[in-house]
């Protein structure tokens, strides 16, 4: 099934994508801003995500964003990651103008009142505690990222390095952040639903057309991450129920040719329960109770991450050795034709599963447009299918080396 898309650019530089889907009364409006935690100043990490919260705090013209949307039966949320800040609304298509009105209004600037800022800082601090501090292994990314990245701003997670960074965020720097990143030229608007492209374009012009392109100050460039010559290791003792191991490598960019090879490679390792790591290390050798491998899929050089929780009474060293054997096997032995066909079949069905519904399609289209061309989304299945056994072995051998690995160990507090 082809995901059809019409593309436009408004006079102020805002990109518009329209996907027509007549099968649903629901429409999705997605706005991607090309800013993530990688664009933050190292002294003020977590601000992209804090800003996402502030964007729901109303504006001079619309006091209550949520209320206005809810009256039209709309629902909204957003996420921030290392690369982007993405806002989305689902709404009955009959009320789609309400969504466009609200998104265009807050593109002109949210209310950065003391009240809004004070409350959202507290909410984000609670989010930090709930997700990262108040549960076992919650702080893994806070410890792993600085081990893997020494230079690139992927070295801090989106939530930020520390709660104190969020607490000290002030009006002036947040306003500067807004001017730099929140303007039509730095955004992609996607409308999906039972709406014709011409009508969507007319409505986009009506609501967004008058927003000025913005000063568009130069965005600071980002440093590349040098290849590691020495392995990195960190061992932490924590109140966790089981020892755990995390191994990570820096991989290619999302838009690079090798990306799908990395994707297939992690699927060979951990795609489903028949993946090699589960079959060998959990089911057969029983050294791990849970194991997984994935790529972060970040736009710059992302991570390939393997993590496992070690079985009780198995030494961390034994488990790590068994894991290393599997990595070595991947570097030397090409996957069998059936193994490779398996991950390709799985990729095809999971692609269709994850792109069901207007919202998922709208978000994915925006991301592909950011990478260069929304229509490339329709090449995903064939790109993945063109990966060969040799490409997997070659890439694994080149990248998954001992010297370039970062290893993080969580040891549980001993009760003896």
């Amino acid at each position, binding site marked *: 099934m082809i995901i059809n898309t019409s593309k436009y650019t408004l006079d102020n530089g805002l990109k518009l994508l329209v996907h027509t889907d007549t099968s649903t009364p*629901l429409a999705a409006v997605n706005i991607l801003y090309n800013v993530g935690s990688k664009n933050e100043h190292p002294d003020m990490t977590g601000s992209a995500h804090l800003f996402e919260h502030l964007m729901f705090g109303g504006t001079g013209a619309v006091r209550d964003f949520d209320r206005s949307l809810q*009256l039209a039966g709309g629902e909204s949320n957003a996420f921030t990651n290392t690369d982007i800040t993405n806002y989305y609304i689902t709404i009955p298509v009959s009320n789609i103008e309400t969504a466009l009105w609200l998104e265009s209004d807050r593109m002109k600037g949210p209310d950065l009142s003391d009240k809004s800022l004070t409350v959202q800082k507290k909410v984000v601090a609670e989010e930090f505690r709930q997700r990262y501090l108040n549960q076992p292994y919650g702080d893994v990314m806070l410890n792993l990222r600085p081990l893997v990245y020494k230079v690139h701003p992927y070295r801090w997670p989106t939530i930020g390095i520390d709660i104190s960074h969020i607490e000290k965020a002030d009006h002036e720097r947040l306003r500067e952040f807004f001017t730099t990143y929140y303007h039509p030229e730095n955004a992609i608007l996607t409308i999906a639903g039972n709406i014709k492209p011409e009508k969507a374009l007319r409505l986009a012009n009506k609501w967004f057309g008058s927003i000025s392109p913005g000063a568009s100050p130069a965005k600071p460039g980002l440093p590349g991450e040098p290849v590691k010559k020495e392995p990195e290791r960190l061992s932490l003792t924590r109140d966790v129920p089981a020892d755990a191991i995390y191994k990570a490598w820096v991989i290619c960019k999302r838009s690079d040719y090798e990306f799908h090879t990395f994707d297939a490679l992690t699927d060979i390792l951990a795609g489903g329960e*028949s993946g090699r790591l589960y079959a060998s290390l959990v*089911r057969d050798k029983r050294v791990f109770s849970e194991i997984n491998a994935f790529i972060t899929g970040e736009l710059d050089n992302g991570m390939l991450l393997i993590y496992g929780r070690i079985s009780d009474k198995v030494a961390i060293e034994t488990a790590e050795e068994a894991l290393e054997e599997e990595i070595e096997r991947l570097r030397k032995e090409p996957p069998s034709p059936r193994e490779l066909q398996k991950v390709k079949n799985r990729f095809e069905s999971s692609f269709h599963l994850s792109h*069901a519904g207007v919202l998922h399609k709208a978000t994915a289209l925006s991301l592909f447009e950011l990478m260069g061309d929304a229509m490339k989304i329709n090449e995903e299945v064939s790109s993945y299918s063109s990966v060969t056994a040799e490409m997997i072995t070659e890439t694994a051998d080149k990248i998954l080396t001992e010297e370039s690995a970062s290893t993080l160990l969580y040891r549980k507090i001993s009760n003896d």
Partner: protein
Amino acid sequence: MKRSEKTDRPPTVKLPVTGVLKNPGIHLLKNGIPLYLFPSVSTEIVRLDLTFNAGTVNESLPLQARFTNVLLPGGTASMSAEEIDEAFDFHGSFPNFSVERDKAVVQLFMLPADFSKTARLLNHVISEPLFPEQEMKMHQETRLQSFMINRQKVSFISLESMLELLFGSGHPYGRRIQPEYFDQITRDHLISFHNRFYTNGLKSVALAGRISDAEITVIEELFGERPASHAGNSFPLLPETDYRGRKIFIGKNDALQSSLRIAGKTVKMDHPDFQGLKVVNTILGGWFGSRLMKNLREDKGFTYGIGSSLHSYALGGLSLISTETGVQHTRAALREIYREMNTLNSKLVSMSELRLVRNSMLGDLVRQFDGPFSLCDSFMTALEAGLDMDFYNNLQEKIRSITPGEIKQLAETYYNKDNFCEVVAGRME
């Protein structure tokens, strides 16, 4: 030249409508088991749901239902667990085995081209499981480890204590899992549970997504000969419990947040008050713009999120308020929750708030019925309570017509703080 259109006032809002929801097509299999059909060409995927009368409520000892369910793909006489996993994976299909209180569901997502092969494989796996000792041992270990992790989370601790308080420690709804249960469960327990509640426990089949007559023929062949589920359930009766007004505090010294649960028994989906109660619950804490969210998150910043929800089980319904707050806010958060409950049953809701909740709930229903899979989910939820799509049609009607007086009356009946119990896990400062 760009057309200039007036944007100085907000667009006019239309009331969201789903239209009248129709019941799905039903095809009765030879054995009388219903096959529900939710066809759609908007997806490439087909989903098969098999619902068994095999929930935790049927357990004769703890973990029996869960272990039987999770070990269904653990191996048969002709296939090992690994071969089963590999076969599902190879066909790009995603099996999903889940257990709830009153039922177990075996679900399979796949591309239609592989339907016949994967549905046959699934049938083989769930009909002839051997529950090998080796697989059991592995699951006992890994599940125990996950359980021990969960047991450190305040949200898990508070939920377990609350269910125990409400339903009693002797009843499957309220029984707490203990670490030693993971050792006590044996292969024989699984074999007998499987025989009773899977071999003889298929309640319904559903197909959603890209379906055609070919898939229906396969289902008829595979599941049309099985014995249908015995009529009527022999669920153990819920004991009367003395939970009203009880407060339990479970200290956890290293907690950064406290988990708060306030709950009481209310009514099930089939009760005439339930639809109105949905509106009351939504106003209090059932959505992002609810009073609890506005007060505790948006106004005071005590929490990342707070919600209230209605749960309808075969043996009873409950109303539950849950949140996690910074430990320094524990007491203040409790105070505010009770204040909101009190306001709800002492003051009339304004028309402007009611309009907002009404439109938002109607918009949610449009979302809830978008696409064949969510349509199927909603129908199955109603079916579980002995209802059908009319439940949602009536719900829409109730949302449109309910008055502030009715809401206050329902709140007085169902949101009286004296009829609720409170559990806090974490710290009180």
